[in-house]
């Protein structure tokens, strides 16, 4: 696409970007933005829609839904940590039937693209979740949460073992429409994330979501007991960003053709860019939403500025760009370009 065309397109919708083409293709899903919500940090989109237009997002990634209604874990469920937070919500939710009837119906009626996160306690539960979703339709992709740390039995974290991770993904793949992309959400709490990625790709995952929270713990020094009722919890927020970027980098290097949704502590357009440079096609904004309910929309706009400031016209051209060879030319940001001129005219 020529620059003139891009500008022409953006002119008709001047608030959607700052001159950069923000469209991405995520495993065949065309998206107007690489910015998604993160599972568990946006419920099913309805609350955030009061703060910004959720149809502007690449997609709403819904809170992991299970087969049956689930009350979650006892409170306290949250503890703030340096540049992050620890949570042990425990997948509280209404169950898949209520989700399809209420939340998914609302998302469709609202016109939002939707990636549905599913979680189960057994391989069979994942199969049944996928079957129910296949029957329901009305979503773009499935994110298979095999890495929630807030389950009673840590041995049940499927993503911690290559074999169990693959079994779940295979079960979801078999019970889903073959055209529906499946993203496996992996845990960073493993010795070699590339090995787990390899197993789920072989089992039929279309792409990978990297990363889930890190297992952590806080002790309240006034009560001298664990701060969370669940004792341990998942660490999220900017504190985990370098771990997440490392995981995206390693997996991208091993499987350059496999689309990645990157997440872990993204709070600005600069942070989103870092994940895309590491190899993410799209990024999920999670904990930042708790601090700034408009964070996904703000980060989209900031990312557009970051892309433009580096002399790029399309955000897609930056995906995996940090992996380029040593002798690749360094792009020069345009000091005075057609882009700046156009901005000047519209102002």
């Amino acid at each position, binding site marked *: 696409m020529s620059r003139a065309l891009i500008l022409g397109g953006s002119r008709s919708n001047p608030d959607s970007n700052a001159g950069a083409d923000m469209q991405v293709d995520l495993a065949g899903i065309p998206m107007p933005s690489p910015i998604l919500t993160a599972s568990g*940090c946006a419920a099913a989109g309805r609350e955030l829609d009061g703060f910004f237009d959720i149809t502007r997002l690449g997609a709403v990634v819904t809170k992991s839904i299970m087969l049956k209604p689930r009350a*979650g874990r006892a*409170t306290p469920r949250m503890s703030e940590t340096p540049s992050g937070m620890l*949570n042990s*919500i425990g997948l*509280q939710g209404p169950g898949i039937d209520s989700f399809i009837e209420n939340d998914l119906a609302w998302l469709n009626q609202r016109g939002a693209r939707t990636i549905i996160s599913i979680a189960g306690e057994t391989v069979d539960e994942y199969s049944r979740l996928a079957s129910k979703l296949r029957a329901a339709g009305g979503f773009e992709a499935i994110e298979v949460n095999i890495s929630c740390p807030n389950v009673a039995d840590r041995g049940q974290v499927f993503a911690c073992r290559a074999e169990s991770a693959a079994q779940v993904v295979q079960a979801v793949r078999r019970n889903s429409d073959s055209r529906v992309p499946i993203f496996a959400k992996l845990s960073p709490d493993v010795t070699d994330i590339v090995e787990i990625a390899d197993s789920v790709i072989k089992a039929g995952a279309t792409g990978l979501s990297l990363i889930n929270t890190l297992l952590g713990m806080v002790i309240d020094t006034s009560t001298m007991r664990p701060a969370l009722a669940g004792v341990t919890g998942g660490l999220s*927020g900017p504190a985990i960003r370098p771990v997440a970027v490392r995981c995206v980098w390693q997996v991208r290097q091993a499987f350059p053709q496999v689309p990645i949704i990157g997440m872990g502590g993204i709070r600005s357009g600069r942070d989103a860019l870092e994940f895309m440079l590491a190899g993410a096609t799209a990024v999920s904004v999670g904990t930042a939403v708790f601090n700034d309910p408009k964070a996904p929309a703000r980060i989209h706009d900031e990312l557009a500025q970051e892309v433009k400031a580096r002399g790029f016209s399309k955000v897609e051209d930056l995906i995996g760009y940090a992996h380029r060879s040593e002798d690749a030319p360094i792009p020069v940001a345009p000091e005075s370009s057609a882009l700046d001129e156009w901005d000047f005219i519209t102002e």
Partner: protein
Amino acid sequence: MAQQIVSEILDNRRVGDYHVLSLTAPGVAETVQPGHFITLAMGGEESSMVLRRAFAIHQVTSRGVYGGTLDVAIAIQGRGTKWLSERRRHDTVNLVGPLGRPFTLPKQGVSCVLVGGGYGSAPLFLLAQALRDRGCRVDIVVGASTEDKLFGVLDLKRLASHLTITTDDGSSGVRGRVTDVLDDVMERAGADVVYACGPMPMLAEVARISTKRRVFSQCAVEESMACGIGVCMTCVLPVVGDDGVTRMVRSCVDGPVFRGDRVRWQEINTIPADAFGAPDAEESA
């Protein structure tokens, strides 16, 4: 509908052990009802404190050039509230509000008893005024561990038909707790409704006394929150619905005001075995 705005601090003053911040809130203050709360982001854009803090709305004023403004009372409890207490006039802070379900007000001029523990009395000011405007009798009971931890007693005296003060150490008013005097106050006032805000054990006791007397109670809870807007599921507590089913509901959007007889006070911080979606007995064993 909640708004997110950059608010300017107009005033930061000490009131006993607390700070009261006056904040510009155009588009927010105008829609505030008694019991609503706001959240504030802590420490600026690059802050290491990633979670907002929730504050009950204490007062709402219209101040000419600023449009609507609102006041919140702050108790210094940690890094975030300490940072906030150090803000000065003209500093800015990111504000979201109004949030939550407010108190339900009676249609007729009935007799109301308002109970506040510590700075839990802060949201009772707007409530007392609204009730008086409806022709209600308003009796107020406030208590704290010690005199310095009472909030806004002088102004409450003006708003109340009768004000009762309790302190644990007897430094002001009756020695004891608000719940020690509540039965008598309700009896004297002929209370039809009780409104309360304060620590959970106090609310539990207020609800118990009210229910025993067959009086309708509304309690504003103070649960730890992460988002304040209903997406994170941090601030849940077990509440019995109209259908008799107990659910883990969110304080931020389903509350913070709950019917006292509907909250399972003794089972806060647990998942009751009969709650909707509770683990099956054999699974949790």
